[in-house]
């Protein structure tokens, strides 16, 4: 009888539930492998030059080595605030006219509600202006940090062997960041959005090459070649919230993985 009793009757219920899950989705070995790989000495952050040689002198450029990290953190802030904004934003640029005959559109009205402006036709979003402001300023901070990060890498010559590939990745990320900013300020459907989209259409139509190329690019990005259609906001929305984040995040992970593997380049 005693042999049949479990040694730990209290833990049985716990094990029953988690055991049921673990039998079907065995996470434990994977967690162990992950922890081992993180905790082994080979996977720790490589020591910096200063730490390795126990230097007493610290190079005065070192504060500039945090710029890549700052741009990544700013990116995370834009992701979080962008997810919140996505609940309230309406990607519809169709021109509608108020009773006074003033043109407006749903995108602009939804942004007015987020901002808590007086022309909001629906209920205003609580603290929406803070969320939108953080999205705005974090985007500016990200772009500025990316520019300065690139300057730092250039002036310290950190793009040289074996980091050429990472430099090329970084240039692509810079262009993606600019596209992020551009597609972002086309979304609110205001006058800046309309004017910038017109410039964008003209520039894509003028793509160096035969006419069909420019027309294809303009149609793809702005849903129109000659006049500004309402759909450009939807196209830019798709770029801004799906394509650019997907490609950008993947490349950022690659970029930082390469830094981890190769170590930080420190000029002597």
């Amino acid at each position, binding site marked *: 009888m005693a042999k049949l009793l479990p040694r730990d009757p209290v833990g049985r219920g716990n094990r029953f539930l988690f055991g049921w899950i673990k039998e079907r989705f065995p996470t434990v070995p994977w967690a162990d492998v992950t922890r081992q790989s993180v905790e082994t000495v080979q996977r720790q952050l490589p020591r910096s030059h200063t730490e390795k040689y126990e230097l007493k002198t610290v190079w005065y450029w070192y504060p500039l080595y945090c710029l890549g990290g700052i741009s990544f953190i700013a990116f995370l802030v834009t992701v979080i605030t962008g997810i919140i904004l996505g609940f309230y934003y309406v990607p519809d640029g169709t021109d509608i006219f108020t009773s006074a005959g003033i043109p407006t559109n749903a995108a602009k009205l939804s942004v007015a509600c987020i901002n808590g402006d007086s022309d909001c036709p629906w209920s205003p979003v609580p603290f929406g202006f803070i969320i939108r402001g953080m999205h705005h300023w974090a985007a500016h901070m990200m772009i500025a940090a990316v520019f300065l990060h690139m300057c730092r890498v250039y002036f310290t010559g950190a793009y040289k062997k074996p980091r050429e590939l990472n430099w090329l990745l970084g240039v692509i990320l810079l262009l993606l960041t600019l596209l992020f900013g551009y597609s972002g300020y086309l979304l609110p459907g*205001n006058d800046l959005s309309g004017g910038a989209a017109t*410039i964008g259409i003209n520039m894509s139509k003028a793509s160096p090459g035969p006419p069909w190329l420019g027309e294809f690019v303009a149609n793809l990005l702005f849903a129109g070649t000659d006049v500004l259609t309402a759909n450009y906001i939807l196209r830019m929305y798709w770029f801004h919230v799906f394509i650019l984040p997907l490609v950008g995040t993947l490349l950022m992970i690659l970029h930082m993985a390469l830094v981890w593997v190769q170590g930080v380049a420190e000029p002597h």
Partner: protein
Amino acid sequence: MELELVRQRVFEEKPGFPRQYGPDRTDRQPGQPFWPHEVYRDLVLILLMVAILFLLSAAITPPVGPAKDPTIQPFIVPDWYLLFSWGLLKVAEIFPTGVIPDPLGNGLLGPVSVDTGFWGDILTSLPVIPLFLLPLLDRGREERPAKAPLRSALGLYLIAWIFSSSLYAINNLVIEKWPFIGGDDTLKWFFVIPPLYVGIASYVGLRRLGYREMYWWRVIPIGVALWLFSVQALDTFVLQPLDAGRSLGAHAATLALPQIQGLAFIVLMLFAVMVVTFYAVTFLDERRARALLKPFFVVWIVLFLLVGKFIESTQPASFDFILHQTIPSMHLLYGAPIFVLITAYVGLREPYSAYEYLLNECYQCGKCHTACPVTKVEDDALGGLNLVYNTFKKQHDGVPLWTCLACDACSAVCPLDIKYSDYILEERAKALAVGPPSGRAS
């Protein structure tokens, strides 16, 4: 083992030397663990950044503005990071336009219409192409900016160029605010001349920092700037009035007008500072040039500001006239003197600080100490001495100034090619040139 003992005595506990050797090393990656060391520090910085963002967004709400209007074309200014592209699109009108005909005739490859938008696209992609090619063209190992002056100067040139094109994007606003600027052409010259000033001045300064041969790098840029300035001044004062069809006598009469005299005085002051600088860097040795130019620059700048203030307060009409005459050619009339001042300053900086900069590269590997024969006999050098580092820090004189044999063994083993014995010889020469210490009059 004797060898083991020797190795322990030489290498053990010395920074930069691993304590174990061969494939059995266990201290291969003794880094800081990410958790918790790095995470704590990063968390503080991240929270600080988020706090700054909160503060910014609470204080300055970005305005939305009116909705887009399909009937009107609004005047817009893009965000700052796209201004350069907008400026390049605007300046593209100076390029020739036309149509490249279709080579096949089936519309697959052409016709390519070469218009303003075409040139705008090409110009916008121009700064990107060198960025892609950079790691393939510039090889070698990473270096400080001062050790690669050409690369650094090119980078600063490109940054200045991007600033210029961003400025051109808002040319309407600039011309509206400062109508005497002389129109679009003055702003177009911003693409060419100021970036060159920035690039050349920084190249000269970085060469100086790297302790390279300097003479011609001071004389030629300053001389060319002086020459361009003289041509421009001649054009403003003599050629343009004569071209306008005036006789020499009438021209002489206009030269007596008070506003013309004020203009001439300002231009002569600018000319004077350039001529004196050119004379100093060409005919004087460095020390004398520094001794002459340092007080001269200070006095000149104060005098120039005072004269400008005086004319502005006593003769406002003359002041306006001077502005209208000089601002359209400001790239030469004001840019060249500023360029000369800065180039002379960075090109003539004291070499002692330059040497200190070179010694600063030392990362205390200690090889110089191991190689130095003097440290084997000097009693106070038997401890953890490090020639270059200690000299740089002035904590210990390294090998004392007059005991060094200048055998260059330290430079031969130095992984960074720091020329320690050059430094010692230079210091000795300086000590001798200054003369014996006071009390031993000779």
